[in-house]
């Protein structure tokens, strides 16, 4: 099931798709995001609770038509300038946005993963989010009559996540801050997982989440594929790279130069491009797994 990243992206993600690249500060699928940029995908609806610098890059590169999100910033650093430029000045093109709170997004994924049409939550009441987002409505509890917020299920065409490892059968194991990755994967029609390594057998780890291979369409081995975010047990967050992005992202010319460098680089070297430091490696993407080259989707919906 292990497929080189460029091939996996080509097979699973198409222009106009709704794509979620999830990861809550930890295990952000940065290398996969870069491959999407490199392949020049367009008109994507990008979904993510916390669009951070890789979404800034995707937006600046013109991949996105629409963004569904709850917090768009450079965590711990400040604003996303490419996102800001797209919203306030339509550069490189206009960007439609649909805004939620974290709880709203999390529950949209939960409904999607549960096969339900919508989710309920308390909250949103009295906020201006309600009036600017037609996907926030209210329902009455059929038992108590209590008014609650309702949000529709979120079912991406494709969810992309990064994990620590997979076995040769394609079962995926991740741990540490597990974020919303499981729900986002189970809500999606197709699932691409990039991993640090493929192992013969998965050793149990405290707090792990397993995604069985039957819900995974492709695994790509991308060591360092989450950098400059981090992979618990493998490498740490490169905070300097997040700070450095503030300077690049702030300026259209500096960004354009960064983008030219990215697109001129082979997919395997991506992880090194932004890390600027120590931890991430530039080990080639092409899989070392025994069954590399078998692109046949094995997951649900296939």
């Amino acid at each position, binding site marked *: 099931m292990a497929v080189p990243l460029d091939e996996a992206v080509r097979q699973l993600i198409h222009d106009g798709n709704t794509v979620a690249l999830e990861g809550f500060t*930890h295990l952000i699928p940065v290398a996969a995001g870069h491959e999407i940029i490199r392949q020049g995908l367009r008109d994507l609806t990008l979904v993510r609770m916390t669009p951070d610098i890789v979404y800034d890059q995707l937006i600046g590169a013109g991949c996105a038509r629409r963004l569904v999100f709850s917090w768009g910033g450079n965590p711990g650093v400040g604003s996303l300038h490419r996102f800001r430029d797209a919203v306030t000045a339509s550069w490189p093109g206009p960007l439609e946005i649909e805004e939620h709170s974290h709880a709203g997004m999390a529950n949209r994924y939960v409904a999607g993963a549960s096969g339900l049409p919508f989710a309920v939550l308390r909250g949103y009441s009295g906020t201006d989010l309600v009036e600017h987002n037609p996907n926030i409505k209210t329902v009455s509890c059929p038992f108590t009559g209590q008014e609650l917020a309702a949000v529709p299920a979120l079912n991406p065409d494709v969810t992309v996540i990064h994990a620590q490892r997979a076995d040769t059968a394609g079962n995926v194991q991740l741990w540490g*801050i597990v974020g919303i990755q499981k729900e986002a994967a189970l809500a999606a029609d197709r699932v691409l997982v990039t991993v640090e390594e493929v192992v013969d057998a998965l050793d149990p780890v405290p707090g792990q989440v397993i995604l069985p291979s039957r819900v995974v369409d492709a695994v790509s081995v991308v060591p360092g594929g989450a950098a400059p975010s981090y992979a618990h047990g493998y490498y740490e*967050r490169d905070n300097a790279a997040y700070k450095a992005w503030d300077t690049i992202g702030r300026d259209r010319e500096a960004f354009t130069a960064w983008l030219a460098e990215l697109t001129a680089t082979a997919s395997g070297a991506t992880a090194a491009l932004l890390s600027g430091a120590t931890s991430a490696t530039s080990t080639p993407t092409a899989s070392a797994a025994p069954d590399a080259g078998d692109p046949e989707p094995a997951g649900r919906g296939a």
Partner: protein
Amino acid sequence: MTTVTWTSDEIMTVTAARSLRDGMACFVGIGLPSTAANVASRTHAPDLWMIYESGTLGAAPDHLPLSIGDGILADTADAVVSVPEVFNYWLQAGRIDVGFLGAAQIDRYANINTTVIGDYDDPEVRLPGAGGAPEIAASCREVVVIMRHSRRAFVDKVDFVTSVGHGSGSGDRERLGLTGSGPVRVITDLGVLEPDPRSRELTLVGVHPGVEVAAVREATGWDLRISDGLVRTPDPTGAELSVLRSLTGAA
């Protein structure tokens, strides 16, 4: 004549730390709230139970995290849970005593804006957005806000209500079905504001050492009421300052 031996940010952070009580479950926002909560846990509140929205319950980092999801939070937490779990089971269900937030704008009824400055569809400044704040403001038993005081930030009416404070005044939270009591205190680099018990309008109840009331009024974008019981913030102690400086790296 006293010599000021601390900065306005330091007195703000120390004052905010003091408003957290030992043993509380505290939902911590990144930035100033995280700094203040970490000062509290190292001074008077060793059993402060810090929760970050990345799902780390009971995090006890040995240094300040840059983001809400740094690995140090997971490494030191009592438990790491998924994002739906932290928002639904812990926050929404009412298990959190205090939510600790920052903001870009706040108004006289402590409503908070972290979404846009200007018109939503044609914003002057696009801010990061809601994140976890709307539900923190809705569901924590109480909310403490920490932010720098300026006329741009303290406005008569926020451009966008990202998180509800006290709505348009007394009784609004109840009408909206919000379960927590909302903002109980706003701590700034100039002083401390609390909602008036009856009107819920933010009122100046404390000023920091060396700060004149007139300066606070000048930095506030509405006609700020002053409490009859206005107090002067006690000076930071040497212990508080040394803990804070060891965290921020200031000498």
